[in-house]
């Protein structure tokens, strides 16, 4: 099932609880890389694995305080890399590139020193460059659970540098894989590392 309105919905959900709270809005932009576990594991005589290559990724978030030591945030990320197919660990055919878009609502709070935690729930959408093979009937939007840690170093009254690590988890399948007899979904974990800047304003 495709959910074309999932991203606006996530945005609305994120903003709804945050709007009444008066406080400092923080915008954070980061760039980094995201690595993923396999999207598909298969066996046709040999083991086959489809995995996105390490992807340059942009992270954006807007957060508002919602309670003492707690902020609510809307997170967006986008990364793109090649969809690498390996057979017996050797490079096999080219499946083009694959973009990965995520939108999530998150809660974040201080941990120790300048380190903060974050937990998020959202959605992930895969955008393959070529709608062939296992992508021929598209890829449904999937739910996403995420967690992360951010280190924030104040640089001025409003600006700070940020370094973050992100982990997220989702289930991957496509209608074509299901029609081909795959049962269940592949559990996919992703880890991202990023650096960037945050800007606080009233």
């Amino acid at each position: 099932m495709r959910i074309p309105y999932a991203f606006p919905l996530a945005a609305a959900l994120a903003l709804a609880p945050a709007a009444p709270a008066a406080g400092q809005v923080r915008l954070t932009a980061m760039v980094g890389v995201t690595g993923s576990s396999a999207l598909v594991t298969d066996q046709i005589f040999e083991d086959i694995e489809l995995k996105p290559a390490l992807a340059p990724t942009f992270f954006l978030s807007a957060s508002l305080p919602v309670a003492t030591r707690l902020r609510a945030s809307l997170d967006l990320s986008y990364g793109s890399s090649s969809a690498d197919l390996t057979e017996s660990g050797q490079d096999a055919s080219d499946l083009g590139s694959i973009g990965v878009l995520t939108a999530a609502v998150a809660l974040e709070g201080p941990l120790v020193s300048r380190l903060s935690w974050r937990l998020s729930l959202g959605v992930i959408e895969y955008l393959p460059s070529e709608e062939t093979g296992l992508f021929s009937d598209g890829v449904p939007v999937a739910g996403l659970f995420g967690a992360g840690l951010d280190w924030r170093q104040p640089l001025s009254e409003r600006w700070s540098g940020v370094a973050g690590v992100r982990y997220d988890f989702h289930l991957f399948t496509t209608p074509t894989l299901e029609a081909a007899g795959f049962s269940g979904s592949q559990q996919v974990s992703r880890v991202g590392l990023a650096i960037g800047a945050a800007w606080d304003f009233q």
Partner: protein
Amino acid sequence: MTARHTLPLALLLAGALSCAEATSPSRVPNYEWRLVWEGGLDTLSFHWPEDMLPVKIWVEDSLDMPARVQEGVDDWQGAFLYGEYAAVLVSDSSSADVVVRVVTPPPKAIATVNRLNTLLPGCEGATDLDIEFIATQYELRLPVRMYVAPRYDPATTDLTECFRVTARHELGHSLGLFQHTSDSRDIMYGNPEAEGLSARDINTAQLVAHWPANLIPTR
């Protein structure tokens, strides 16, 4: 909501998600696809190497055959998950990997040609595989030649479906399905009547693409 409440919720969600386990299909049922060579001396398996994709197919522009072949290409491409097969119709037969003529299969010109014949009530088809053992390996000399021809006057009989089935069947030979099956639901049945690819056709095509080929395409 506080972090104290959020963490157990998140762990519960992660636990629920982790219950789903992906399992890949077994590709069963399937059928034998390899060409039995010289009375059982060897069996030959073929698939298009990745660096030759997309396979270039030239089709004689007669009786709407390019459209029928394109439909067959689309069907076979859809049988694969990982881009193992792709083909395009080209306008120059001299550089084509597969040449499709809309004529009654002519007598075999070369002794090394291995012909696979197909006979339907309304039309007929054939695929010629020119195979030779050179030095240390079996070579498939390109182009693979395919023939599709009406058995009745196409002006008086609608043979569209017959051409569609035959084109799909002959294309199956061109991607390595070198045997006829005994199940009429398969497109690779000797006298095919199936309106599409069976699960056995799809399973077998996927197996062919990953089985080590000992028949190498050459020009």
